[in-house]
């Protein structure tokens, strides 16, 4: 993007940090990585990736509309994602749809329509394709100080709420029947979690764009789930991997002519493949000796 890559890593990092926009991108990326690492872990555990996908697709027209109206894109992302999360929570039994059932045609139609609306808002805005690519695939430049502040606040609130409901939510996710018998309220917990998911999808979209949210939301959690079966450790690993993906992705994108979306997804995919390979190797070794941990 600007200076070339030299062989002195420390110098490279210092050059990278000398740009204010890069500093902001790293700050925003770090916040997003921590939040999406934790929330993503619960999302994969609860098998709600499809809900996450829907939320991210629906966020796109929100951001595009905000852009068209001249409002900050963050307002559009947060507003629409949280509203959509509430709607999904209100519908009976849609959160766990895998996209293969009979309802998938309906969900597909809604997603297609949402994308078409986003396209409409973008083409109503006269200054076309640069913004469109940014909204869909993420941008590294142009994260303002205000945006970082908004991300930080929303991230903190998200993590605080999650800290309060983490134990019951984990219980409900693993065994809903027993949890209900113990007096927990699975439906309320599910709704609260979906709203948290909406917030974190909205935050992640601002870094990776609407179409590549999964790179930060699913890949770290899926990789962590293959490395350990313990929830606490898994969550930590998931955050660590998400941080690694963002920092590496943003760093490489800074020194290369290719966009951040490509690098973030590629790093995420590579780490996921490594984790899956480790799991396969460990299973093969474990079958001979003691029983391996279940994936």
């Amino acid at each position, binding site marked *: 993007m600007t200076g070339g890559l030299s062989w002195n890593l420390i110098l490279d990092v210092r050059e990278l940090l000398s740009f204010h926009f890069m500093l902001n991108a790293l700050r925003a990326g770090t916040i997003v990585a921590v939040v999406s690492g934790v929330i993503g872990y619960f999302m994969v555990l609860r098998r709600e990736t499809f809900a996450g996908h829907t939320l991210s697709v629906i966020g796109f027209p929100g951001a595009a509309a905000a852009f068209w109206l001249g409002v900050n894109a963050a307002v559009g992302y947060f507003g629409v994602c949280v509203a959509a999360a509430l709607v999904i929570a209100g519908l009976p039994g849609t959160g766990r749809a895998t996209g293969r059932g009979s309802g998938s045609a309906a969900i597909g139609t809604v997603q297609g329509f949402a994308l078409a609306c986003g396209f409409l808002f973008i083409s109503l805005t006269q200054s076309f*394709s640069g913004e469109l690519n940014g909204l869909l695939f993420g941008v590294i430049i142009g994260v303002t100080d205000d945006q970082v502040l908004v991300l930080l606040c929303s991230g903190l609130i998200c993590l605080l709420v999650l800290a309060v409901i983490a134990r019951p939510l984990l219980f409900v996710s693993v065994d809903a029947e027993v949890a209900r018998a113990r007096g927990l309220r699975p439906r309320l917990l599910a709704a609260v979690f979906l709203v948290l998911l909406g917030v974190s999808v909205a935050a992640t979209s601002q870094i990776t764009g609407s179409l590549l949210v999964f790179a930060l939301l699913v890949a770290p959690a899926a990789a962590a789930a293959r490395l350990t079966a313990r929830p606490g450790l898994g969550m930590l690993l998931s955050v660590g991997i998400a941080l690694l993906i963002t920092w590496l992705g943003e760093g490489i994108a800074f020194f290369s002519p290719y966009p951040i979306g490509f690098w973030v997804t*590629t790093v995420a995919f590579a780490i996921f493949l490594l984790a899956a390979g480790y799991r396969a190797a460990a299973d093969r070794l474990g079958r001979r000796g003691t029983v391996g941990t279940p994936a």
Partner: protein
Amino acid sequence: MMTRAADPITGIGHMLSHAFIQHALVGGTAIALVSGLVGYFVVLRGQVFAADALSHVAFTGAVAALAAGLDLRFGLITATVVVGLALGLLAGRAPAAADDAVTGVVFAWVLGLGVFFLAYFTSHSSTADGAAGTRVLFGSIFGIGPSAARLAVLIAAVVLLALAAIARPLLFASIDPQVAQARGVPVRWLGPAFLALVGLTAAEASQAVGALLLFALLAAPPAAAQRLTDRPWHGLALAAVLSVLALWLGVAASYAWSTLPPSFTIMSVATAQYALAASWTALLGRRSRAG
């Protein structure tokens, strides 16, 4: 260009006098016919998800061809047909292997690769226009030229012939695979062959509404048709009619209000069809339960 006529008949006459509208309607009708018919089987077989996968691949394939300096449609068709075949062959072997987290990660990476090719294309090609990515993602039916319209009709004819050849066994295999297999229907190769057809259709449809929206065009009119009738041949015909109708109305609406892009209007009509069909059957169901 946009002289709005006082009455709709002259307005339609004005519209049809433009060459770009004629090409859009000729090519678009062929595309919509095929997506309606193939889409009916897609919905019937519960393979909307496969169509979603193909739409991601369509984007990356098209942009990769642009980056390599080839014709966009070449990349589109190769990528979607090859991946369609591969999906069909894999599905028989490892049915439960594709857990949704894995597919999510793979999809994100495929799109990420598309972004890479797009950036490569826009920075390395001197003739590149910045709107190429937009065109691939969201389509531009008004950009279909005479030769593209002819090719679209030709491909549609091929798909229709192939579909006509396998329609009966495919319907049987979709509704009851076990009995079909017992009766000697070659279920094993019908699946991959059908998904290859879906790939061709996806490549066609992405020219009309773009890679991101094509799976909704494949799903919405057929899903509406399925709500309205249980009889397969009626449903098939209805799906084709609804799909063509969505395209015609969409093109006309986009012509009448030039600020609305055609991809948006086509998708809006298709979505409205599905919403109307769903609420109609919901209403009927409630009434029959009450009475």
